[in-house]
């Protein structure tokens, strides 16, 4: 449904008298099949939004190729526009308009007749449980309601693909769960959904496949399960006093079952092992025999953050 080859974009930014070129996106290859929720994961500034805006025809790529819903992005952006929907990160509704007015206008901007636009607006308001607020001004809506109007705006013309830029950023947990349900409903309606997020749990729970982006490049792509499986083994997290951490590191660093080891800021260690169940008793014995005080011990299956850490050398939470 989306195929890109070597998509590039750089911006010139001016700081004082110097102009420097920032390579925001440095050659992105993507292949998104129809009917999936595809997640674009990465820290702020990784180039997710720039890539998305290129795919949505809002900025022109410097180079590369892309076919979106069968239309060529570079030679036929007009046709791409007809086939996609796009929901921006910062909102897109006007304070003084009502939700219904916005939906009717949006449908009509796609060339849909007035009567049909009104029918679609009513249907969308029902589907997104907004009928109650339909004729109130957007400025009276809650964050979650407003976001739902914006998603409804993005799909009012029944596109084949909808791009959602950080659809749950800034929502409370309940609205967020609600939004996930809405996004799954779009997929159930046969739409391909392309979302960006910097929430790991969101990518994990919601997306069929994800691409991890860092410094303008895709560093990993696959299903969340595949990506996690790639980092073989388990993670054992050992909670220790900060003072005892150094000694524990010395004790465990040489052990043959420990593949890799990391210090935790709050004291303690993260140990990457092949098999958690057999490693834990051995770790416990080592710590016990050295007389160190153990505060906690946890076993994790690898998370997407571990994937991110392995691919980029940084934790997504830190960046």
């Amino acid at each position, binding site marked *: 449904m989306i195929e890109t080859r070597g998509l590039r974009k750089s911006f010139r930014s001016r700081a004082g008298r110097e102009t420097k070129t920032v390579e925001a996106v440095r050659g992105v290859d993507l292949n998104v099949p129809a009917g999936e929720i595809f997640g674009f994961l990465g820290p702020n500034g990784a180039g997710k939004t720039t890539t998305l805006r290129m795919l*949505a*025809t*809002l*900025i*022109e790529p410097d180079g590369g190729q892309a076919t979106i819903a069968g239309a060529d992005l570079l030679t036929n952006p*007009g046709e791409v*526009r*007809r086939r*996609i*929907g*796009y929901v*921006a990160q*910062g*909102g*897109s*509704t*006007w*304070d*003084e*308009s009502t939700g219904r*007015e916005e939906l009717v*206008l*949006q449908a*009509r*901007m*796609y*060339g849909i007749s007035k009567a049909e636009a009104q029918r679609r607006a009513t249907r969308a308001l029902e589907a997104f449980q907004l009928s109650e607020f339909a004729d109130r001004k957007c400025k009276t809506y809650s964050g979650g309601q407003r976001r739902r109007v914006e998603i409804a*705006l993005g799909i009012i*013309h029944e596109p084949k693909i909808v791009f959602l830029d950080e659809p749950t950023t800034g929502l409370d947990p309940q609205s967020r769960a609600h939004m996930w349900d809405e996004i799954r409903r779009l997929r159930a309606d046969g739409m391909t959904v392309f979302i960006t997020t910097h929430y790991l749990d969101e990518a994990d729970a919601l997306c069929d496949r994800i691409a991890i982006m860092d410094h303008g490049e895709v560093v990993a792509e696959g299903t969340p399960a595949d990506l996690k499986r790639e980092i073989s083994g388990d993670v054992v997290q050992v909670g220790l006093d900060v003072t005892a951490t150094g000694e524990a590191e010395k004790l465990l660093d040489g052990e043959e079952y420990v593949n890799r080891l990391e210090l935790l800021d709050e004291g303690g260690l993260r140990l990457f092992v092949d098999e958690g169940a057999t490693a834990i008793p051995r770790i416990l014995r080592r710590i016990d025999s050295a007389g160190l005080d153990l505060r906690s011990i946890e076993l994790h299956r690898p998370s997407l953050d571990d994937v991110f850490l392995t691919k980029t050398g940084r934790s997504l939470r830190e960046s």
Partner: protein
Amino acid sequence: MKLARDTWLIFQRQLNLLLRNPVWVFVGVFQPVMYLLLFAPLLKPALGAPTQAEAYKIFVPGLLVLLAIFGGLFQGFGLIAELRAGVIERSRVTPISRLALLLGRSLRDVVSLIVQAVIITLLALLFDLRVFIGDLLLAYLMLALIALMTSAVSYGVALKVKSEDALAPLMNTVAQPVLLLSGILLPLAFAPGWLQGVAKWNPFSWAVDGTRALFNGDIGNDRVWQGLTIITVLAAAGVYWAARQFARSVR
């Protein structure tokens, strides 16, 4: 005709939003009315006009052109608010005509200007201003073209600078010399030769002269067709340039 349909769509939307907040009529008309009531009475003795009506014939056209220039130039502020709300970006992902995004907005501005101009003209009639309806309609056409140009340019600049803080001083810097060099408040006939020479290069001074000739019932005056031609060409150029800003990538 896609362009006409799209333009009408945006025009309707913008007009609806404007009508929702009718305070603008008073705000827009308040200043010119003040000029009319508090400044114009000085003109009869100052200009040495034989009657008050003669003084209004000179002053009202200038006032209307002033309204058209300033009304248009400051429309960009509204667009920056729309830009910030994401409304422009939301429009730009749809296949709607880029020219229509501009024209729908600018035509709304033209209509609101004409409404204000009619109010001012009616008030001036109370002060014994008399003007032929045909001449008046042609003068309104001139005003409409001026407003179309200035609002288009204002939108184009707003899309380029993207911030109110940059737009306000820019527009003021442009508007002030344009105002002083167009003989709006007092006819340039009183100006020294060098000032008249400079003003010749200000297209608005031609528009003011033309509008004054129309209010004077002098439709055959060369300044009428010259002013209309100059402003038409500039309006077309302004619209073309501003529509390109709508089509360009806006960050």
